[in-house]
Structures are given as C-alpha cells and as structure tokens.
C-alpha cells in the first residue's frame, strides 16, 4: 500500500536523504601517502646515487614508480570492490588522477625518445601534480592540499632555474609539501 505524502513530508525526505549522502567523505589519504613516500625515496636515492657517480643513478625511478602503479592498481581494485556508493567527487578524483597518469606517461615517453629534455621534464611534472593536488584540495574542501598545490608551483618555478641535481631535492621538497603533509593531515582527520 502506498501512503499519502504531504508536501512538507516530501521536502523533508529530500533534505534528509541528500544530507545523509553528503557526509560521505572517504579517506583519500592512502594514495597521497603511497606516492608521497615512493617519490620521496626515488628522488633522494637518485640524488645520493648521483653524488656517488653511479652511471645508473636514475634506476630508483623506474623501479619505484612501477611498484607504485602495481600497488595502486591492486589497492584501487580492492577499494572499488568495497565501496557501496560512488560520489561525484570520487568519480572526479579518479578521472583527474588517471588523466594525470596519462600526461606523465606521455611526457616520460617523449623524454625517453629524446623529444623532451629531462631537465625540463622534472619541473613540468611538479607543475602538473601541483595542479592535481590543487584541484583535489578544492573538491575535497581541504586547505592543506590547496596550499600544497601552490607550493608545488613555486618550487617548480625555482626548479627551472637550478642545477639539474638540485631539481631532485626540490622534487623531494615538493612531494613532502603536496602529498606527505596533507596526506597525514587528511588521515588524522578521517
């Protein structure tokens, strides 16, 4: 049997249901922390290996970044299995960071093919994850991420002007500001 609704009851239902869906902010910190630590480890070890004048000093990058992609795919798949509801924000984040991954792969491929200079690729990537972090902060309404994004841009501008090996230290600094600090703040909040 269908019960008759008054108009006020109807509005009440709409308000109540929309309100319960709104407070669904999930803990998005996992990916920020994962990539934060991996990029930090890669950039610092690359820097140290360069100081030791090892000819394959860049090697931490392909190893750690591929590891990150594998962990992300597995974790993303598992989380996707568990989630009962996908918010517009979740969907937007997925598209933003998959798009980011595609852009990074294009840049790295072009650098490997010699069409782009590695010295400019690093700061360009910092500019781009600054954008991703800034947008994520905006949609999650989380200021540390917004500030982290802005910090990335300032660091990237500096990185365009310094000696190549110091770009690695700036990369490490940018990832601490944009991923690790906001990542831990986000984690402690939820």
């Amino acid at each position, binding site marked *: 049997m269908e*019960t008759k*609704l008054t108009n006020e009851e*109807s*509005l009440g*239902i709409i308000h*109540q249901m929309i309100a319960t869906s709104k407070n669904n902010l999930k803990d998005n910190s996992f990916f920020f922390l994962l990539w934060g630590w991996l990029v930090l480890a890669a950039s610092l070890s690359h820097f140290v290996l360069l100081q030791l004048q090892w000819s394959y000093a860049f090697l931490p990058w392909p190893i750690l970044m591929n590891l990150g992609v594998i962990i992300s795919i597995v974790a993303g798949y598992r989380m996707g*299995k568990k989630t009962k509801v*996908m918010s*517009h924000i979740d*969907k937007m984040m997925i598209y933003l960071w998959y798009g980011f991954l595609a852009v990074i792969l294009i840049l790295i491929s072009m650098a490997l093919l010699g069409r782009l200079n590695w010295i400019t690729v690093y700061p360009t990537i910092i500019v781009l994850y600054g954008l991703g972090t800034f947008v994520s902060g905006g949609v999650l309404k989380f200021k540390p991420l917004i500030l982290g994004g802005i910090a990335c841009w300032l660091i990237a501008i500096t990185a365009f002007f310094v000696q190549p090996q110091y770009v690695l230290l700036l990369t490490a600094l940018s990832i601490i500001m944009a991923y690790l600090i906001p990542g831990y703040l986000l984690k402690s909040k939820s």
Partner: protein
Amino acid sequence: MFKDLDALLHNQLRLSIISILISVDSADFSHLLEKTGATKGNLSVQINKLKDAGYISVKKSFRKNYPLTTCKMTPKGVTAFENYVDAISAYLKKPSE
C-alpha cells in the same frame, strides 16, 4: 493552476531512493537499503518501478559470488526530480488551499 505531482516520485521510498541517487554518481542496493531503512522486498519493487519508468538505470553484476545491483540516475530521472521539486515548491508557496 498547479502542476500535477509526478505520482511515481510522490511516494516515500521512491522519493528517498531518487534523493540519494541525485546526490551521488551511483550507489548499490545495500547502500540504498541502509540509508532508506526499507525492507529488501519493498526496495527491490520500488527500484524496478523507477527503472521501468526510465528514471534510473540498474546494472546487475557479481561481487564475490553475491549479486550486486548498482543504481544510477538517468537524465530523464534528473528532469523528473527537478520538475517534482518545482511542483512541490509551487504548492508550498501558496499560503492555503
């Protein structure tokens, strides 16, 4: 003259389902069950009515061998919901009958 209220939406459970779906991208059956507090049977009947009207799309799949039903608003459903809210607002603006 008042607009007629969409009879399909003017029902507590169906309106609840639509109000949840309007604010998310998609939600599965157990989420709707939890948020609406309805019984499985009733929820399933009302989801089918909304699906038959073309207001929501329903995707059936499996998760760990259990059936998984994922619901999502269609553009037609969004328009219907907007019209319903407009109609309700029109009624509420009128001081008395």
